[in-house]
């Protein structure tokens, strides 16, 4: 049976792994390659490398870092951050990434999704969506890497998830902003509300703090994977322990 995925995310800024709360006040967590290696060895099912300020600073993720991480790990590797062209994506894939994740650049130019899908295939293209609950609905935000640049994308999340799928996206990572970095649990309400509109794999992001939060999101929101950063970086949760816990609670997990 297809296993649910546990996905640590390396949020990178200025060549180090950082973590903020609700996308602000980033603190330095540690060394990129050391963390990547540790997660791979602890049983992570996939690793996401996210250069958080690349998009808002108008540059792309560092190719050297992509290659250094890709060389060390034996699990799938997804790279995100300021990827605005087919050529940049091609270089990142050539450096050893398996998947490309785009967020703000897809909002700037939705046609980029089609171009990337045509060049590399649906399975290669992940769309990250930063979604915020306000005025009684879920709204998409962009340039969330810095509080100076963050802005509304003036789209409803439900409309955007449908559009990106029509354009060929192979996976959606939904960052639930109200929960980000709070460690109070994934946004089950939002994920469950949007799941019926998402026919590609859906990855929950934002809010993980306890083992129970992972169990809840798999049981109640039927997501395919759960992404988290700070609980793994700060060693509040050990990936091996988390997987044993989920397995004891009848979640299909790779051990």
């Amino acid at each position, binding site marked *: 049976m297809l296993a649910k995925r546990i996905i640590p995310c390396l949020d990178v800024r200025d060549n180090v792994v950082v973590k903020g709360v609700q996308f602000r006040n980033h603190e330095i967590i540690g060394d990129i390659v050391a963390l990547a290696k540790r997660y791979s060895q602890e049983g992570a099912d996939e690793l996401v490398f996210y250069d958080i300020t690349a998009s808002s600073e108008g540059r792309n993720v560092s190719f050297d870092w992509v290659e250094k991480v890709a060389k060390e790990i034996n699990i799938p590797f997804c790279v995100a951050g300021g990827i605005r062209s087919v050529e940049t994506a091609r270089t990142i894939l050539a450096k050893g990434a398996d998947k490309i994740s785009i967020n703000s650049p897809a909002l700037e130019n939705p046609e980029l999704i089609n171009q990337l899908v045509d060049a590399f*295939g649906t399975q290669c293209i992940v769309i990250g969506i930063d979604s915020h609950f306000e005025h009684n609905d879920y709204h998409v935000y962009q340039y969330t890497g810095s509080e100076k640049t963050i802005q509304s994308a003036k789209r409803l999340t439900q409309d955007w998830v449908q559009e990106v799928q029509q354009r060929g996206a*192979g996976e959606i990572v939904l960052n639930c902003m109200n929960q980000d970095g709070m460690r109070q649990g994934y946004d089950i309400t939002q994920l469950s509300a949007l799941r019926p509109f998402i026919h590609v794999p859906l990855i929950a992001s934002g809010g993980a703090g306890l083992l129970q939060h992972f169990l809840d999101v798999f049981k109640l929101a039927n997501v395919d994977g759960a992404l988290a950063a700070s609980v793994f970086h700060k060693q509040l949760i050990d990936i091996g322990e988390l997987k044993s816990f989920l397995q004891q609670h009848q979640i299909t997990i790779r051990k």
Partner: protein
Amino acid sequence: MIAIINSGVANISSVVFALQRLGIAAEVTTDHRVITNASQVILPGVGAAQTAMKNLKDLNLTSLIPTLKQPVLGICLGMQLLYEASEEGDVACLGVIPGKIKKLVGKDLIIPHMGWNTLALQKKSPLLEGIPGDAYVYFVHSYCASVSDQTLALTHYGQDFSAIVQQDNFYAMQFHPERSGEIGERLLKNFAEIKS
């Protein structure tokens, strides 16, 4: 030395790095002489069948690959290219393994099939040496080969399909051994040890 055929589609570096971690010498190439003289050949690939077949044709590799005598390993799209044809873009493929690649089907099935799923071993093979019966490997695909005489291991997702196949000296895996943890490393190591 293993020759990794550069079919012009993404993800070749993942395979190169995996072999480097195992200390296995490999060269990415489109050179017919290098390919013909290699101890083993890997045909990797992700992306669309049509694009990959066009690239192989432009490199005159569509006639060379089926004639290779050493162990050949198709990975993911590289596996699908070894079949007669693919429903994806309705394209003729290399025709080494009988059958046609079809879209995964199943009620309410989330496509692509993306993530770690289990192998059910069907036959003994040196390729499967040391692989436990319920091993997890990493898949990313929307099309598949049905279960056949060539199936060494199958996987279930909406339907049973071929995860590992063998036709004479041609081996193929629908998943990505280069990104399948220790199980994937063992499979690559086993393949590198198969002699002509």
